[in-house]
């Protein structure tokens, strides 16, 4: 991963957010490191792999893993069923948890359905673009992962984003801004203009989702805004800052120039593996067996 690291920006400036967080960060890191140890720390010593130069396909497969996660979350929430075997690819990993949300507000169900459609479309688009190089869906955990995240964030010992429509919005919040930062970080690493155009199109859709979810949570008010911000803090801890605390006048997550944040793949992996611990992490959190492809290690 040295080459990758060399090519990626350190994101040090955005760590200023962490500096402002004070001592709670250290505590959260500790909780994260222990709370999710089951999945990540027990991973056997990895076989050293000489990293080849990363290609566009590597980055697109990295994105595909994230889209699998989002698609499974939203499809299950909106319809009760996840990706078809065809869409998940051969030898796909299992998905744990996730069920149809008992929506009470038609509008929220309609929002959920739209985002589910978008994420499914992203999976299909990336699989088609990658062709035979497309990775299959890795194992995904939508149950214990949210419990661990809630625990680490200080929300409570468990959290079921499928329990009701408001919880669903908080669950969605967990993913959306991360997708924006991930695509933003990857966009500049792509070499093919067509891939850049595709990434820009997907990324803006993720930003629409994020703006929508953040708007809806501010309208709900507390405790949901507080939950969202506890998750945001958790993401900042694991993912190099790059968060804007949610409030009525901070719908957009961006820096002081009103430019959205970006994250390195490693930072994104720390978040979705729910592990802020230093060192190389290969799995955990939402991906109990890690992602598939070449960009799989949080370092």
């Amino acid at each position, binding site marked *: 991963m040295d080459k990758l690291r060399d090519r990626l920006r350190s994101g040090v400036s955005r760590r200023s957010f962490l500096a402002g967080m004070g001592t709670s960060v250290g505590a959260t890191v500790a909780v994260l490191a222990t709370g999710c140890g089951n999945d990540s720390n027990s991973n056997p010593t990895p076989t050293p792999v000489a990293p080849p130069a990363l290609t566009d396909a590597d980055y697109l497969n990295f994105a595909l893993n994230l889209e699998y996660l989002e698609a499974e979350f939203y499809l299950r929430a909106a319809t009760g069923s996840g990706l078809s075997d065809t869409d998940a690819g051969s030898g796909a990993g299992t998905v744990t948890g996730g069920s149809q949300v008992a929506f009470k507000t038609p509008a929220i169900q309609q929002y959920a359905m*739209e985002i589910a459609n978008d994420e499914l*479309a992203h999976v299909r688009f990336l699989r088609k673009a990658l062709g035979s190089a497309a990775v299959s869906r890795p194992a995904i955990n939508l149950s214990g992962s949210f419990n661990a995240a809630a625990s680490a964030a200080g929300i409570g010992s468990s959290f079921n984003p499928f329990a009701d429509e408001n919880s669903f919005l908080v669950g969605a919040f967990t993913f959306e801004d991360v997708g*924006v930062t991930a695509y933003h970080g990857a*966009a500049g690493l792509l070499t093919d203009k067509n891939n850049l155009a595709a990434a*820009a199109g997907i990324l803006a859709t993720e*930003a629409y989702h994020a*703006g*929508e979810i953040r*708007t809806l949570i501010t309208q709900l008010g507390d405790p949901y805004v507080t939950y969202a911000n506890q998750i945001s803090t958790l993401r900042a801890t694991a993912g190099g800052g790059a968060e804007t605390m949610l409030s009525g006048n901070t719908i957009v997550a961006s820096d002081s*120039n009103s430019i959205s944040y970006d994250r390195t793949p490693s930072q994104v992996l720390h978040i979705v593996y729910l592990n802020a611990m230093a060192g190389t992490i290969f799995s955990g959190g939402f991906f109990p067996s890690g992602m598939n492809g070449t960009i799989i290690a949080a370092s």
Partner: protein
Amino acid sequence: MDFIDEKDRTRVLLEEKKSSRRSALLLGGAALAGMALSRTKAFAQASTTVTDNDILNFALNLEFLEGQFYTLATTGNALDQIGISTKGGDGTAGGTVTVKTNPMVPFQDPLLKQLAMEIAMDEQNHVKFLQSALSTSAVAQPNIDLMNSFNTLAQAAGLGASFDPFASETNFLLGAFIFEDVGVTAYQGAAGLISSKTYLDKAVGIHNVEAYHAAAIRTRIFQAGPGAQAISQAIAATRAKLDGTGTDDVGVGITNGAATIVDNDANGMTYARTTRQVLSIVYGGGAAGTGGVFYPNAMNGTIR
């Protein structure tokens, strides 16, 4: 449209020159009379190589428009009145802004007012960021029309003789709607033209922020109900018509049980527009180099 009455209601801000004001109004009338909404008004093909500065200046023109709209809607003041220069990097004076008297929107919903103020700040930051990045190459603000423009577009979209985006919360949302998705498509189309990785990163970051804005605005239009949704659909259709595709724009509504908060295609991707398509929309079909509607004397810079 009666320009005598309009003129009486008009407050022209910034470094106004009477001659330019008159010409702006006349051009507005000409654009209205012509209403070149069909594709027949072809744009001249750019023949020179486009530089990163050209693209960033194109973006700066768009940010001036958005910055003025949101700043006026939330404060009643124009950019230079709140301390943001509209001058060019070489000192060229900024253009005029044509807007009604007292454009501050009578917000009722505190959260919506906060959103409007947040977007205003973001657009101001984008102006300042691009001016800083472009330094002495930054263009001055062109003449901007935030009054006749909306009336003209309202007629084009079949929404009546006039439209005041500052009159109410819902009108403000619809006025904002006109810009935001266009900003997203403009940055997306321009991203592939930028050669500097640093500028590409920044452009993508602004592109994202515009998408956050668009989503926040569209979510609220969805919540405003079928009437507002229908208007957004008419505006989206007009934008698609103006850019020549007829298909690359989705208004707010419900399709097959799913909301259409996101303005994107069947692949779940937002649309990209070329600079020419963007110009056609913000000029209301006016010719390249001539301008119209929001930019009565065209943009400043090489892409205009």
